[in-house]
């Protein structure tokens, strides 16, 4: 199959190369010295880097939670709207996703920078007097990530809620469950596969994000994606960059494996 050849040469071979080089050492002038050691993996435990992994995980987790909180009511509303409107709403959710990611991130730079729109609006109504610095902070990165990946949360949630039998929800209500109990005891358990799928679809790109922290985060909010780029293109320590890449990929694949395990359990 030609596709397998193409993918083998231009994807699996390069990935394998990353794995191999992650055990090598950096050459004196940036190249690769072919040795075998675990030094790169051990170096990853440096507190400097640990802070970056922790920030990546925390920001990705926060993005996931915020997307879930924003996305669930939206997905629920769409799934229970008349069929015609469902199509319109879904279209509206997808359109921003088709708009260039850099452009969408730039929009937030424009809004959040110290003399940006957000500040201008707030100061013109007298809420703030001195410039507020939101851009180049973790908050800005969080906003950018949520903005970028919200559609990834809404779509699988919508699919799960749409499949949820209306009469089952009514049955819970009829059996004395209040709004919250209906949600916790019936809606949430029955839409769990959608929730998990949405969380993964948001968490995976968030944890490996590059553009958002690069543009909105500045030097203080580096994430793993930026660290890899930094090691490759600035420090030119390819073996160490490879080790970090591999650890990131392993994390993502473990997340996916967990998802499939949960999904098959729910499907029984």
């Amino acid at each position, binding site marked *: 199959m030609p596709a*397998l050849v193409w993918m083998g040469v231009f994807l699996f071979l*390069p990935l394998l190369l990353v794995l191999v080089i992650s055990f090598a050492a950096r050459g004196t002038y940036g190249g690769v010295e072919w040795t075998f050691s675990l030094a790169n993996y051990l170096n990853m435990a440096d507190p400097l880097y640990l802070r970056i992994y922790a920030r990546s995980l925390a920001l990705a987790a926060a993005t996931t939670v915020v997307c879930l909180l924003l996305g669930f009511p939206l997905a629920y*509303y769409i799934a229970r709207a008349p069929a015609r409107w469902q199509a319109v709403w879904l279209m509206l959710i997808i359109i921003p996703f088709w*708009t260039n990611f850099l452009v969408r991130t730039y929009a937030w730079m424009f809004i959040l920078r110290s003399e940006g729109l957000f500040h201008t609006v707030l100061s013109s109504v007298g809420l703030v007097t001195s410039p507020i610095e939101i851009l180049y902070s973790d908050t800005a990165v969080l906003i950018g990530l949520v903005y970028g990946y*919200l559609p990834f949360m809404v779509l699988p949630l919508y699919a799960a809620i749409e499949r949820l039998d209306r009469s089952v929800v009514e049955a819970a209500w009829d059996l004395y469950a209040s709004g919250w109990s209906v949600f916790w005891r019936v809606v949430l358990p029955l839409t769990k596969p959608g929730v998990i799928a949405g969380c993964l679809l948001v968490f995976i790109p968030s944890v490996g994000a590059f*553009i958002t922290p690069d543009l909105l985060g500045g030097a203080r909010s580096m994430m793993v994606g930026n660290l890899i780029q930094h090691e*490759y293109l600035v420090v030119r320590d*390819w073996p160490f960059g490879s080790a970090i890449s591999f650890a990131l990929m392993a994390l993502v694949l473990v997340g*996916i494996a967990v998802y499939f395990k949960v999904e098959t359990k729910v499907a029984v």
Partner: protein
Amino acid sequence: MTGQRRWLRSASLANLLFLYAPIAVLVVFSFNASRLSARWQGFTLQWYQMLASDEALFAAVQNSLLVAVVSTMIATILGVSAAVGLERSHFPGQRLVDGALLLPLVIPEVMMGVALLLFFVMIQVPLSLVTVTIGHAAFNVPVVMVIVRARLRKLDPALEEAARDLGATAWQAFRRVTLPLLSPAIIGGVLMAFTVSLDDFIVTFFTAGPGSTTLPLKVYSMIKSGVSPEINALSAILVLVSMALIALSLVMQRVNGK
């Protein structure tokens, strides 16, 4: 019930505002006369005029289109054949191959970028538009494959059997029955791959060499050199183009659906 519904609707409208307000703001301020301020200082088209005279920008657009067209063609041919091949045949370890081909959809893009960079440097291929195109085709094969395969799975196998029964060879049955039925999915896959390629920044960032600047790379370097109304104008144009592409794909879906 109605109270709950009203609450959900307000929350949904707020979400929509969150999704669209930033884009709307960008477009509106691309017509703002002030270079630095976020205050409205009057209507102007000067930023668009400045873009129109930026030759590097046109070169970048050209590069992007070239990469998108070629990589989409490669990805479509490979993706469709992989979809058909994997769906129709059974061999040991197939599940592993299935999973492996989906890998580009789930691994961090940065990882794909560095892997390709490393690979090209190691085999001593200079970075250029060719390496960019190869990279794009690699991540677009699974995009096309997933879309086509989903459709293929829903097709009734009896259709192709009926064609065979009526005297068609295997190839004729595929060419005359299956392929036409797959065409909406293939068109969908082409559109998706084309857009993903046009928009891609990260893989391009790692695989592009001198002189192979694509539009997203150009946008990135403009953004990196500071907020300016020209970027707003460029963004507005890109938003408009993507809206037009969506409208086009909707129309094509409707035509094909009938």
